[in-house]
């Protein structure tokens, strides 16, 4: 029976999973460095420059500090849930990377290897499913801390994420109506043949972008961490690496949502203005795949920079403003966008070309 299992296939996927997860961890690590550097530059400061050249070893130092700090579990907290919170946050953050296509196939040791952990045909639904689980990490953490400020902050985070997920989903439906598929790989292929989705769906992208900020709990929507009103938020009772996990999960989320935005709207690993088939003949499939991955990463870095850029520009929203924006502006706009897109797609299908 077990002879039927394709062992090499399993190993191949395992290696891919390890590479993807460690890559997202390293990128999250260096996002913290980049965040501080970008903040410093935008505020005319210098940022971390003590550890290593340009402060490049700063994330290691931060990590070391978080690991060696005293771990405090409050007496009246719910022990198991208190530990589960950050684990869940971290788990859901890393799980999303499974369905993302990082590049086309490469040819190694006589095998064609897909640069994607799982080409699920409901890929985008999987992403949404896991993303909405992410709120449990925050919610459980806030609840188990047995601190009313943490709980209130967790409530805020939960209602914020749920509210914005609606607008995000609706704005995505418009995109899915154009591409006609839920698989992320097919969406990328669709954009490789035609033009990028950002051209067809600028409003949808804007809504998606704003919602992505809210989903990641990033400024200007980081109301779950309002220091001045909730004296820190859902991770107030956390210390050492458990706090580190929460903060880390935020950066991984940021990375993953950058990848997803690049994949959905900016052609994924597509290299712009280049005839891929022509280039492929010249340099071979493996180098082409490497170029693809590099191209995706350039797009992702641009998005990460954008996340930081926005953080150091726009001040935090007030909670009622946040809710107003989500429910009264973004959802109607997304519905409108969906309606218009639907009408256009329908006209196209009825051979009413214009």
């Amino acid at each position, binding site marked *: 029976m077990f002879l039927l299992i394709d062992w090499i296939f399993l190993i191949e996927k395992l290696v891919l999973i390890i590479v993807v997860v460690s890559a997202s961890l390293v990128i999250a690590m260096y996002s913290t460095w980049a965040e501080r550097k970008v903040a410093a*530059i*935008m*505020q*005319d*400061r*210098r940022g971390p*420059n003590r550890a290593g050249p340009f402060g490049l070893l700063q994330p290691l130092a931060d990590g070391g500090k978080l690991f060696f700090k005293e771990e405090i579990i409050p007496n009246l907290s719910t022990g198991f849930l208190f530990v589960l919170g950050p684990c869940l946050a971290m788990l859901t953050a890393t799980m999303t990377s499974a369905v993302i296509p990082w590049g086309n196939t490469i040819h190694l040791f006589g095998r064609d290897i897909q640069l994607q952990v799982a080409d699920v045909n409901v890929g985008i639904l999987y992403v949404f499913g896991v993303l909405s689980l992410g709120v449990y990490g925050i919610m459980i953490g806030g609840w188990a801390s047995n601190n009313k400020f943490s709980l209130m902050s967790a409530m805020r985070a939960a209602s914020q994420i749920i509210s914005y997920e609606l607008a995000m989903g609706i704005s995505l439906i418009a995109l899915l109506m154009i591409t006609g598929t839920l698989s992320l790989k097919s969406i990328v292929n669709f954009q490789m043949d035609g033009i990028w989705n950002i051209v067809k769906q600028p409003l949808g992208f804007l809504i998606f972008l704003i919602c992505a900020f809210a989903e990641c709990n990033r400024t200007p929507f980081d109301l779950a961490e309002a220091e001045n009103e909730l004296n820190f938020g859902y991770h107030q009772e956390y210390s050492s690496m458990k706090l580190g996990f929460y903060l880390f999960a935020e950066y991984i989320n940021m990375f993953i949502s950058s990848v997803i935005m690049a994949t959905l709207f900016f052609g994924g690993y597509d290299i712009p203005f280049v005839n891929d088939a022509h280039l492929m003949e010249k340099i071979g499939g493996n180098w082409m795949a490497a170029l693809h991955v590099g191209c995706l990463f350039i797009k992702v870095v641009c998005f990460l920079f954008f996340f930081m*850029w*926005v953080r*150091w*520009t*726009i001040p935090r929203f007030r909670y009622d403003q946040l809710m107003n924006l989500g429910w009264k502006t973004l959802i109607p706009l997304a519905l409108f966008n969906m309606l218009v897109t639907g009408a256009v797609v329908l006209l196209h299908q009825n051979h009413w070309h214009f």
Partner: protein
Amino acid sequence: MQALTNRAKQVDRKPMSFSERAYLPAILKGMAITFGHMFKKRPTVNYPEKTRPFSPVFRGLHILNRDEEGRENCTACGLCAVACPAEAITMEAAERKTGEENLYREEKYAAKYEINMLRCIFCGLCEEACPKDAIYLSETFAPANYQRKGFIYAKDDLLIPDPKTNPDEYAKAKGNRVKRENSK
């Protein structure tokens, strides 16, 4: 009501236009501003490697000066204490004995000289009052301390290092300020 200056501005109470209510133009403007800061020269000084030069009128901690042979200039005349508006300086005079000519320049010297740094306002009047070039305000900050008595600086804290035995430290303590005063 008549405005007192021509700088008064009427508050704009017009309802916001559509582009203002949409926030996005304002956000884009703000982002352009922050992006512009990436290309600006940073005023930050890379501190431990580079220090910010003091202004020529900077007045820091006091120093009791010595002459070139390492003798104390101060003759305990008390003019600095009189000039001090915060009454931070106290001193006790003593007479120079034979054999102490290498320590003190003139017959009278300060056996005890104390400045209470909690009272001192670093006005520099002591420096101006001194007829013997004995007290200077250097280019050092007053350091922090845990106890109030730590702020009462006695002669060991104030005296400049000996120029003969310790010329480097002497030059450092003397700083640029004294040179400027001497050239005046």
